[in-house]
C-alpha cells in the first residue's frame, strides 16, 4: 500500500514527525471532546451555562487550548502536505508557508482568548 507513509522531500522529517505525533495527541483529545460534547451532554450539545461551568476548571482551559494548538498544527501541516502533492513552485510554497503561519497563529490567539473569556465568566 502506498500512501503518506514517508516524509516528502520538501516536507522535512521534523515537520512530518510533528504532524504524526500531533495526530496521535488529537485522537486522545478528540475522544474526550466527543464524549463531553456529544455523549454526556443532553441532546448532544452543551448550553451556554454548561460551557461556562465546564470552563471553570483551569485544567479544562489548559487542555482545550493545548488541543487547539495541536489541532491547528496538525491541520495546517497537513494542508501544506496536500499542497506539496501538487508540486508547487518555490514562490507558491513560500507564500503558502507565510499564509499558514499567520492564519494558524491568529486561530490559536483567537481560540485562547475565547477560552479565557469563557473561563472568566462568573456563575
Amino acid at each position, binding site marked *: 500500500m502506498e500512501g503518506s507513509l514517508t516524509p516528502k522531500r520538501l516536507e522535512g522529517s521534523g515537520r512530518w514527525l510533528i504532524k504524526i505525533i500531533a495526530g496521535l495527541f488529537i485522537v486522545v483529545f478528540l475522544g474526550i471532546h466527543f464524549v463531553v460534547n456529544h455523549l454526556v451532554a443532553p441532546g448532544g450539545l452543551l*448550553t451556554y451555562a454548561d460551557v461556562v461551568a465546564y470552563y471553570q476548571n483551569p485544567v479544562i482551559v489548559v487542555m482545550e487550548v493545548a488541543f487547539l494548538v495541536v489541532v491547528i498544527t496538525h*491541520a495546517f501541516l497537513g494542508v501544506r502536505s496536500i499542497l506539496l502533492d501538487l508540486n508547487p513552485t518555490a514562490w507558491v510554497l513560500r507564500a503558502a508557508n507565510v499564509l499558514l503561519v499567520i492564519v494558524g497563529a491568529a486561530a490559536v490567539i483567537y481560540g485562547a482568548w475565547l477560552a479565557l473569556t469563557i473561563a472568566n465568566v462568573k456563575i
Partner: protein
Amino acid sequence: MPNQPEAKNWPRWFDPRSRSLGTFGFILNRITALALTLYLILHLIALGQLAQGPAAYDGFIALVKNPLFKLGELLVIAAGVIHGLNGIRIALNSFGIGVRRQRSMFVILMALAVLCIAFFGWKMFMEG
C-alpha cells in the same frame, strides 16, 4: 489522463478507476483532511457566539439542533473517525509497525469506523 502529481491533474483524484486499496486509503485521508480543516475554521468562527453571551450562543445551539445541521455534524464526525483511524494506521506503519498487514489493518479500521459512525448516528438521531 496520466496520474502525475501536477496541479492541472487534480480531477484525477476523483477518478476511482484503476486504484489500489492503498490509494483509496490515501485519497480518503486527503479528502477528510480538507473537510476537517474547513470545519475547524467554521467551528472556531461559530464558537465566537460564546463571547456574545447566553442569548446569542443558546440561539445558535437551537438552530444547529435542526436535522439538517445534525446530518452535517454526523458527516464531520464520520470524517473525524475515518481520518483518525486511518491516521493511526499511517502512524503505526510510519514507525515500521504492521507494515506487512497494512491492507488488513485498513479494512478492519474502516469497518470499526463504520460501527462508530453508526453508533454516533443512532445517539444523535434516535436519542437526541
